[in-house]
């Protein structure tokens, strides 16, 4: 190991603020979550009844329309965007043929200030979750003090996607 501390009083004055990171494109995330499998987009237009049912089942308010792909050989790939207090997060969820969460990959992250989500305890046990395991703030997922909104929105986003599978995608089989 080699380490050189850089902090000096002068360095404190020279600073930058805010940042954005793009991690994966949609195609890259598809390849990561479903290596080698073809993903075909599905036009998902939900009826008002379906939207209400999803909202009821997930306890999460409907956000922007989800982008959905069907994965050859079974499974679904879903892209969603959540807006927190200080940041936008676009993320992808892979669901296997039984609707269990295969993985969650962040696609991009933009923060105007804060970034509490990045370095505050935020307990997630998404892997292997199905809609039968209620994702609950404070129980499954530890709240972020000072950044509750963004945490809640990401959590709700995942819940909404799982409920959308149960009520709509599963029937499209």
């Amino acid at each position, binding site marked *: *190991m*080699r*380490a*050189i*501390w*850089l*902090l*000096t*009083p*002068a*360095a*404190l004055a*020279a*600073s*930058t*603020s*805010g*940042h954005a*990171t793009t*991690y*994966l494109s949609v195609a890259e995330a598809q*390849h*990561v979550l479903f290596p080698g499998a073809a993903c075909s987009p599905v036009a998902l237009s939900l009826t008002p009844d379906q939207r209400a049912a999803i909202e009821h089942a997930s306890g999460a308010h409907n956000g922007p329309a989800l982008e959905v792909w069907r994965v050859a050989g079974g499974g679904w790939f879903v892209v969603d965007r959540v807006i927190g207090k200080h940041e936008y997060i676009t*993320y992808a969820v892979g669901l296997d043929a039984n609707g269990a969460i295969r*993985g*969650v*990959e*962040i696609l991009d*992250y933009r923060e105007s*200030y*804060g*970034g*509490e*989500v*990045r*370095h*505050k*305890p*935020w*307990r*997630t*046990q*998404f*892997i292997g979750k199905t809609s039968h395991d209620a994702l609950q703030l404070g*129980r*499954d*997922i*530890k709240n972020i*003090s*000072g*950044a509750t909104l963004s945490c809640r929105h*990401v959590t709700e986003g995942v819940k909404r996607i799982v409920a959308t599978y149960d009520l709509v995608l599963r029937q499209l089989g």
Partner: protein
Amino acid sequence: MTSSSANSVKSTVIRTQPLLGTFIEIRASGASRERVDRAITRAFAAVSRVQRVMSPHQHDSDIARLNRAPLGTRVRVHPWTARVLRAAQSLSRASDGVFDVTVNTWLRRPAADLRQDAAATPVTDWRAIVVGPGATIRRLSDVRVDLGGIAKGFAVDRAIDALRRAGVTHAVVNAGGDLRVLGRTSERVLVRHPANPAVIIPLLDLTDGAVCTSANYLDAPGHERLRRPDGRALAADHHSISVCAPSCMIADALTKIVAAIGVRESRALLERHRASALVLSRNGRMIASDPASHAA
């Protein structure tokens, strides 16, 4: 904590997953995109395994099973859990109980709760946890184990291990406050200013080692997550504490000790682990454990 690099190699991939209560960011370089992606997937799987066996919130984790097992009963755990507990016990011994994985849940409670419970003595006793042969653990008294102060660093170490085994030559694993660099290329590590978290400042240049930062500045007054073992808040000017060490697990745990007893009191322990610390206050005051390493 974020990091930046001017490193240029054949294929560099950066991915993030929500794990361990934070976002784990992995940036890795290797021979091809395909190979690096596979390596990163393995690294995330290792972190996920640490979460599965050590999270106190997961009903079937080693820690949850240990915490509800009858006293004296040997609980068989994953070898990783036994390893982390052994390291924790060793640090508890060396710090005379300042580091104690049995106090963690109590420490996380808001100060208001602690005041209300002034009469109730916190149940903390690292000696009541016995790590036996064959990765078995038993509790001798009714204390609860929470590896929150050390497991995240261990998970970062396992991720680095997975990347190395998969042929990655250079990587940074960043679990929020816990970061480790693999390879011979130096990485500049940045940190938020405790007086203004929107401002990011350079912290250190790091090669083949880990750095962990703990800070209070995002917590509401009276609700600081970092506390001394006796429940009191930290020294008034200890607003951001960083420790670098060869392993992320050690850096993670030492950060808590430095936060609790200060840089000067921690110096011998830091040196024993080839670690060093830097504490930053809101007004820009700095205390380094080793002035020689504190180069501009």
